[in-house]
């Protein structure tokens, strides 16, 4: 009992142990913050990474594969599959209204089915909103007004079309359109509440510049250039086509928002010559008829080249973060493909060469990199936190020396060695606990306000640590995980106990008479 009394008294009457507690607090706070941000980063990465790829992808890059409609029909017949959608993935150039050209990843998607498989619709940026972002004090966000327009943009975005006024009649004309990543054009300047259009100036032939409308989905259009390949993978001439912009999307992954353009699937198939085509014989174009005149013969139809896509994305019925769930679905999909490849032997890639990837496989390098980085950073910071152990050790060593006489007194009135050691250990634990609690409070405050703190730092000191270009995300993510917090706090208390252990043993071993004579 006296252990508690002394711990309480020593804690409330000395400054040194409070410094030790502060050191423990800062170390635990540091580790919790790092773990939360890195963990949040990982969760956000995984979430964003999988938003636009579905759970499992069947992939045959560049040339693509045929009969995908049949494959999708079979996939969707499976009870574990919620939906499947065809896509084309390729690279190309985008010509922007201000004359710039950028390389981008181009994805041909079928709006309605792509929305069923992925979170595409949720990422569309231009849609009507009712309440402004809490930080949008002056209600600058253009989406707050003109709801009708944004409603059209939203619908258009989901279907990759731009609705335009018809020349005659009153049925809107649907033109195939593209959806750009929100950072592709460079016109959208990020504000605290999201993105809003900034001012872009287009270069004129005479060398001057003039402002251009920067909300692309309103009336902007872009030129898409792609390089078609034949079934053997040989490049044919570059194809360019101008598309109206239907909408822009914001996945949160900077790389994707900066470099991805969605194009309506049919239009892209056409451009890449991956659409359905009639194959004709090339040897008998010119024939000689009975009169000896050469005529163009109706080409002999040899067959039909069916439409092709490079990917089929599949979404499972159960949505889970577990790798196992995705792996199980991938196995299922592989089974279905095996049968499909057998039925269409010679026309589609064999089941051994086709690539079937889970969302995790597709983001593996990125996810693993972050996982490794998290582990490394945690290791380093935990190592740095060892300083707390040594600080507690040093402070306790000094305090044991200072309190040597007290130890002699305690022994003289009958305290056992164990009791004396226990006092110091308890004291160490109390300091650790105090430090851990304060550390958690600090970490909680920082983690939950990390973006506000970051913005404040940026505003006041011009210090921007988080550069979205480097870190994929426009906001600093965080995930205060209860297990992680518990581990760190327990570690803090344990470290303090370890730091107190040696001085405690020294105190216990001290001869009471020697201790009493100590001045």
């Amino acid at each position, binding site marked *: 009992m006296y252990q508690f009394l002394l711990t309480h008294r020593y804690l409330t009457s000395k400054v040194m142990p409070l410094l030790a507690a502060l050191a423990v607090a800062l170390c635990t706070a540091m580790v919790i913050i790092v773990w939360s941000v890195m963990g949040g980063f990982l969760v956000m990465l995984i979430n964003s990474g999988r938003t636009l790829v579905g759970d499992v992808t069947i992939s045959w890059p560049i040339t693509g594969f045929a009969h995908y409609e049949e494959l999708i029909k079979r996939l969707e017949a499976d009870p574990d599959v919620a939906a499947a959608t065809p896509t084309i993935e390729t690279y190309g150039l985008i010509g922007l209204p201000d004359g710039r050209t950028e390389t981008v990843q181009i994805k041909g998607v079928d709006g309605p089915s792509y929305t069923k498989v992925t979170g595409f619709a949720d990422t569309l940026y231009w849609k009507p909103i009712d309440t402004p972002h809490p930080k949008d004090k002056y209600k600058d966000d253009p989406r707050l007004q003109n709801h009708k327009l944004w409603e059209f943009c939203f619908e258009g975005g989901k279907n990759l079309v731009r609705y335009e006024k018809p020349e005659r009649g009153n049925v809107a004309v649907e033109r195939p359109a593209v959806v750009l990543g929100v950072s592709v054009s460079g016109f959208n300047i990020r504000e605290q509440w999201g993105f809003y259009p900034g001012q872009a100036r287009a270069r004129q032939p005479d060398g001057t510049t003039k402002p251009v409308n920067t909300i692309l989905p309103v009336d902007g259009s872009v030129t898409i250039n792609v390089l078609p390949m034949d079934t053997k993978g040989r490049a044919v001439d570059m194809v360019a086509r101008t598309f109206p912009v239907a909408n822009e999307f914001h996945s949160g992954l900077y790389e994707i928002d900066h470099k991805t353009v969605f194009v309506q699937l049919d239009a892209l198939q056409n451009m890449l010559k991956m659409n359905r085509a009639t194959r004709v014989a090339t040897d008998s174009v010119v024939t000689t008829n009975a009169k000896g005149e050469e005529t163009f013969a109706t080409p002999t139809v040899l067959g039909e080249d069916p439409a092709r896509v490079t990917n089929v994305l599949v979404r499972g019925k159960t949505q889970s973060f577990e790798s196992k769930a995705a792996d199980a679905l991938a196995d299922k999909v592989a089974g279905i493909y095996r049968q499909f490849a057998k039925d269409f032997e010679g026309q589609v890639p064999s089941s051994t060469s086709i690539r079937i990837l889970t969302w995790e496989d597709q983001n593996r390098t990125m996810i693993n990199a972050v996982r490794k980085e998290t582990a490394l950073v945690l290791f380093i910071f935990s190592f740095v936190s060892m300083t707390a152990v040594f600080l507690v050790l040093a402070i306790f060593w000094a305090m044991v020396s200072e309190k040597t006489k007290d130890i002699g007194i305690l022994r*003289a009135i009958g305290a056992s060695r164990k009791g004396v050691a226990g006092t110091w250990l308890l004291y160490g634990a109390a300091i650790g606990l105090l430090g851990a609690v304060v550390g958690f409070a600090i970490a909680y405050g920082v983690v939950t306000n990390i973006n506000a703190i970051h913005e404040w730092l940026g505003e006041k000191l011009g210090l921007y640590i988080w550069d979205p270009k480097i870190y994929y995300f426009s906001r600093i993510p965080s995930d205060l995980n209860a297990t992680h917090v518990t581990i760190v706090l327990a570690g803090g208390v344990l470290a303090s106990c370890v730091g107190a252990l040696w001085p405690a043993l020294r105190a216990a071993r001290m001869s009471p008479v020697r201790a009493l004579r100590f001045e």
Partner: protein
Amino acid sequence: MTAAANNSAVLRATNVRKTYQLGRLRVPVLRGVNIDVRRGEFVAILGASGSGKSTLLHLLGGLDAADKATTDTGPASIEFEGSDLIRFSTGRLDEYRRRRVGFVFQFYHLLPELTVLQNVTIAAMTAMGKLEYWSKRGEVRAHASALLERVGLGHRLQHRPAELSGGERQRVAIARALVNKPDLLLADEPTGNLDRVTGASILDLFTDLHKGGQTMVVVTHDEATAARADRVVRLVDGSVVAA
């Protein structure tokens, strides 16, 4: 002499030796001390400074270990109620200090962070388990307060030692030594650090305690103090000499 002094010895030290090792030098401080303390007796150990009084008292109180007996020196023992302290385990020695003896030091040795009352109750705490203390804490506090009242500090319970005079601190130390109702009260020059008047009042307190039946051994270099005892043991150069 009180009637109680006729009882058999509570404490009997036989041929007790203590040698300090100073580097290669062996410094014999106690050279075969014999001493008896009977129940209810007030024994004074009188000796000049450096004669080994404190060392002897520490051995009697189980605070330090006497030399192990050798064939040269012959058997040694410090028997408390028949069992030999020299052969006690550490745990048993702790127990002995905790329940059987109370110590009063020349320099009071109070814990500066604790209040007067806590300085007394902490000794009771060491003798009790946590649960036991928790269930009896009211009683313990009442008992400690009563003791402090008795030594004349009833109005100072919540003060810190630093706020007390030397005499008052020594009273706190006495109350602490008594809180576990020890069989034996050991005091090492309890008035050595006090002025004559204050010292006399402390000695009065000891005399009172003795009248109440408390067995005690008081170490002093002062003849006047020794005069209050039932019996005086003179220590010269680590040996007891005839009175």
